[in-house]
């Protein structure tokens, strides 16, 4: 018994040396760089999170994981949820487009979900007077910044979720509009195309070409 106590005492004895401040900082810095390097770009977060949830459980998977048979049910639930949120937009009335702060999270989710569903090929999700359209194109660049745009002409309204650099074509109040949605890398959004040039800067007009416009960058 004495031996056992001695062994336990020796094992508990904090003999392990400290890592040291320099090594700690070096390791933390290198890992943080790797974290930033592997951080999913716009749309990727949801895809990766979904992949993590569906990954079979193993000892060091942070997500724990759901088993593959749940996949179909999960995707279906996500899809139905997306439709429910989009239908909410369709029911919104009034001539002032709404881009409330709490909508941003839902908009990001919607865009990320559709983008994940269509392998990063979503150019825009357009909701026009009760009709939803998903515009697909070539695979987007990883760095594309998601943007939410609201256009209103009288009582008619279009809600667009797209990515910086994408060309958006919509029909509103009898007008065909084609413009490029651009992010300035910060919170600024520029819509440009044909006679339309609009930015979301504080001093820019909220109405251009008879359209009430609002847009914001959806920070991922």
């Amino acid at each position: 018994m004495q031996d056992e106590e001695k062994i336990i005492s020796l094992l508990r004895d904090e003999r392990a040396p400290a890592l040291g401040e320099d090594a700690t900082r070096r390791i933390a810095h290198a890992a943080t760089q790797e974290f930033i390097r592997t951080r999913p770009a716009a749309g990727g977060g949801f895809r990766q999170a979904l992949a993590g949830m569906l990954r079979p459980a193993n000892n060091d998977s942070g997500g724990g994981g759901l088993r593959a048979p749940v996949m179909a049910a999960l995707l279906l639930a996500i899809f139905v949820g997306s439709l429910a949120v989009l239908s909410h937009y369709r029911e919104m009335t009034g001539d002032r487009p709404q881009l409330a702060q709490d909508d941003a999270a839902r908009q990001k989710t919607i865009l990320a979900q559709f983008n994940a569903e269509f392998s990063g090929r979503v150019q825009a999700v357009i909701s026009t007077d009760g009709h939803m359209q998903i515009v697909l194109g070539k695979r987007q660049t990883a760095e594309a910044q998601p943007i939410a745009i609201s256009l209103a002409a009288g009582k008619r309204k279009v809600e667009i979720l797209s990515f910086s650099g994408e060309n958006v074509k919509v029909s509103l109040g009898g007008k065909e509009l084609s413009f490029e949605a651009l992010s300035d890398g910060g919170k600024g959004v520029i819509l440009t195309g044909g006679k339309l040039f609009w930015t979301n800067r504080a001093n820019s007009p909220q109405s251009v070409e008879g359209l009430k416009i609002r847009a914001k960058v959806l920070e991922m």
Partner: protein
Amino acid sequence: MKDLDDETLAQRAGKGEAKAFEALALRHADRVFRMAWKWCGNRADAEDVTQEVFMKLAGKMHGYRPRGKFTTWLYQVTLNQARDHHRARKRRLRHESDFTAQQALLKDEGANDENAGPEKIAEMLHRLPEGEKEAVLLVVCDGMSHREAASVLGCAEKTVSWRVFSAKKKLTEWYGHAG
């Protein structure tokens, strides 16, 4: 960031916040290193394992969904990495034809760096089967409950209890013979 608990930081890191990830790494690097040191028995390997653990976490944190304490997961990753590192090292040794190089490595393994204290107990710890060694490291050295250790090791609480019991028995026997 310093005031936030591990779970909050991990969730923020899961959403892509680099500062939160860095705070976790700074907070836990020493803990991981100490565990790795006890597993590997030398500083160089323990530092390698620590680096590998955080590089691995950097890739795995995105989309992190908490399923328990962050530190439980951290211990799992650390032990897995220590095992992998040790196996890779053994494979390298097996293919190493230079006898003196092998001897140097073996000598280094038992050297215990600056803490040359009770080498005997460290050497005996490394002779234990992997499962028993890890149970001892978590329960005896790190003071975890059997339940916590079971969740880290992914086995039943009773298994941990048995492994600790068996390990203590072996260590006591070896210690007696060696003395």
